[in-house]
């Protein structure tokens, strides 16, 4: 993150800065700081003791990580954290594999029914999850999937969005590359896996980030399908606390902070990818 963003719209011109531009810059910065105020206060409160919570200063008088130690040593919370991690990672891997396999097939193979299958998969984007949860619940009850990892994960193992995204990118891969691999004697699976996949690595990373974030923050279906506390995901666990007179705000803020930290790390490490991925997906979709 350099002071002068290389990807900003226009080239730098020194000596032509007008007061209006300084005003705009200041307003934008203040607006941005206002946007992250809730996040800053979340971390600030998580570093305070119970008696300091009523002190609304942003910088805690005596910051301490005691709350983190307490929350993480609580068996439930650690379990929810691991549940969420396992589910988000597994679903992401599944999407990377299947969405790109289907996207590749639809982009690079000629066969009857290709367009029909593409439209059929695309049409599922029109169906809201809310409409499917009742049949999914019925199906899960019959197959004993309720209250299990698989029950939480199965609806998201493949997505039409990911398939569409990958198809768009595989279409940019030149056929010559694949033909050369075919002449070298690779079978179609190897061509896809070893030749085509590395060529769409940026798209794969964008898909991975979206899928991970989406599943890490997913709430509606996990709330429905889980009943025992051990199987809660982090968001469902956090929502199971209740807001009472004796609410331990510093503890809840610590839990909220722990749910946010992984996505912040992902963001800070992959900032460029994420912003560009959102732009790509937004423009293509």
């Amino acid at each position, binding site marked *: 993150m350099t002071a002068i963003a290389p990807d900003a719209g226009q080239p730098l011109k020194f000596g032509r800065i007008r007061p209006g531009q300084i005003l705009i810059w200041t307003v934008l910065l203040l607006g*941005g700081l206002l946007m992250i105020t*809730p996040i800053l206060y979340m971390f600030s409160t998580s570093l305070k003791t119970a008696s300091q919570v009523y002190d609304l200063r942003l910088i805690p008088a005596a910051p301490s990580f005691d709350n983190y130690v307490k929350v993480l040593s609580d068996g439930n919370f650690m379990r929810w954290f691991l549940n969420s991690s396992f589910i988000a990672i597994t679903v992401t891997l599944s999407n990377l594999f*299947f969405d790109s396999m289907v996207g590749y097939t639809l982009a690079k193979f*000629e066969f009857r029914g290709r367009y029909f299958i593409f439209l059929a998969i695309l049409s599922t984007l029109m169906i809201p999850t*809310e409409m499917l949860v009742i049949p999914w619940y019925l199906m899960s009850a019959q197959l004993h999937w309720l209250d299990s990892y698989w029950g939480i994960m199965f609806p998201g193992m493949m997505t039409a969005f990911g398939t569409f995204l990958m198809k768009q990118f595989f279409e940019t891969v030149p056929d010559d590359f694949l033909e050369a691999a075919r002449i070298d004697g690779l079978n179609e699976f190897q061509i896809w896996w070893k030749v085509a996949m590395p060529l769409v690595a940026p798209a794969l990373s964008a898909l991975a980030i979206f899928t991970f*974030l989406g599943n890490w923050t997913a709430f509606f279906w996990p709330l429905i399908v889980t009943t025992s506390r051990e199987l809660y995901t982090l*968001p469902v666990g956090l929502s199971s606390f209740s807001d009472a007179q004796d609410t331990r705000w510093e503890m809840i803020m610590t839990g909220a902070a722990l749910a946010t930290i992984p996505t912040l790390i992902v963001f800070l490490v992959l900032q460029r990818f994420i912003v560009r991925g959102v732009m790509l997906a937004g*423009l293509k979709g």
Partner: protein
Amino acid sequence: MTHGATIGDAAPKGRVWDRFPIRTKRVIWAWAFLALPIIFYGWIRFYPTFQAFWISFTDWDILKPAQFVGFENYDKLIHDPAFWKVFRNTFTYLIIGAPVSLVVAFAVAYYLDRVRFMHGFIRALYFLPFLTTAAALAWVWRWIYQPVPIGLINGFLAQFGIPQQTFLKSTTQALPAIMVTAIWAGLGFQVIIFLAGLRAIPQTFYEAARIDGLGEGAILRKITLPLLKPTTVFLVVFSSIGFLRIFDQVYNMTSNDPGGPLGSTKPIVLMIYQTAFSSFDMGYAAAQTVVLFTILLIVSLLQLWVLRSR
């Protein structure tokens, strides 16, 4: 997965396969790749869709077998005052939330696009809330809206002698309070997409306009906004669908009493959730989901229509 799935068991390995022309082989490969996904989409997406329609015509309540009741659930829905209240709440989220967030996001993107100094940093500030978990940050917002001595806003107001606001416990303030949270959470995404759209407009258009002597306002009206139309339409539809399906923030900001005081914040998805998984009145809940589906379908079709009539 690879070879086994494509060759009949009876054939000696290699023989039959080798006799196929390359074109046929590739078709077989394609269907092998698609086999599992076709089962998935059929079983997890299409079949449940039809099932949802079917359940909406039954009185299924988990305990006794479903019985066909025709349009009874839909009839009940039309005459249910609770549904109309929820309907009104949902459209309040939509009609205020979507325009406000889009105008703010566009203003931020429009000016941020011209800012060079610390561009990436400021962009990150706006984008960060989009990456947070709604269930986690809902707690932070509940804290912000608490009465003195806990809440941030009331603490701030108290310094200026402004009376305490009840926010989430009020029948009139709870819905706007939740809407602010929802707008906050989605704003960063819209800013990024607007920025991408603005950057996709070729600089030559602006240069030509400047040579023609157009002012800033005229350039915005005659060049930026028309060329940005596809981006804008996408975001209008995307955020409209988001507000019509609002749930996480509402459920988590009033979880002692989901739906707020007297159901004043309850959107349609929360009603569906409670009908299906608190009352287990599956038939009735399914009818509500069909109504939601119809509304979302109309919004999506409007998008296609608007983009086509260009």
